[in-house]
């Protein structure tokens, strides 16, 4: 059949183009790795502290038991950690609804004498979705409930 050949030719061409395309995409994504990140982790900030005036974003977990409210009522201090490093953060303003200990946070601001002075605070949600009734259960209880619903 004479129709087979050009069809295969086209298929090979398209496959080569696709491979080149995916390669280019992966390369671009890899090159963008540092630029395209929305925030720095505490370990990044500790390893390479940004200049004092430069605005950066710091993201990580709000360490359990670290949130301290100032007497003025609108200033909070807490520690953002990523398991490798810890950075103290200070923020004056209204915190987002999901800003709680043990949860993710992204702070916009600058580093000043080892403390991150945040102008803006964003909460980061994790990938878990759990009903409120299970919140107060112990891990074992929650697991049992989850196992039941499965």
């Amino acid at each position, binding site marked *: 059949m004479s129709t087979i050949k050009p069809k295969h030719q086209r298929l090979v061409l398209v496959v080569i183009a696709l491979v080149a395309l995916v390669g280019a995409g992966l390369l671009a994504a890899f090159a963008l790795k540092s630029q395209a990140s929305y925030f720095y982790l505490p370990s990044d900030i500790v390893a390479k502290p940004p200049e004092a005036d430069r605005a950066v974003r710091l993201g990580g977990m709000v360490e359990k038991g670290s949130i301290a409210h100032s007497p003025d*009522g609108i200033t909070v201090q807490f520690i953002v950690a990523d398991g490798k490093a810890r950075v103290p953060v200070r923020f004056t303003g209204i*915190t*987002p*609804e999901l*800003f709680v200990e043990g949860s993710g946070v992204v702070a916009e601001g600058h580093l000043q004498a080892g403390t991150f002075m945040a102008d803006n605070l964003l909460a980061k949600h994790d990938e878990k979705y759990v009903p409120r009734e299970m919140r107060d259960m112990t891990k074992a209880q929650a697991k049992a409930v989850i196992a039941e619903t499965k």
Partner: protein
Amino acid sequence: MHERLAQWDFVIAAYAIGVIGTCLMVGWTLVAMRRAEMRRDLVRGSARANSGGTPEA
């Protein structure tokens, strides 16, 4: 100070966008489809009007 928002307002807004958007898309597509099929049948001549695209709804 912790932010307190009326959560249901956001839920209703998101559902409204999703539901209205989907309904508009479905309705517009069905109208456009029927119009195109009726035009084709018209062009083909009335004798074949029923074999082309009869509205099914």
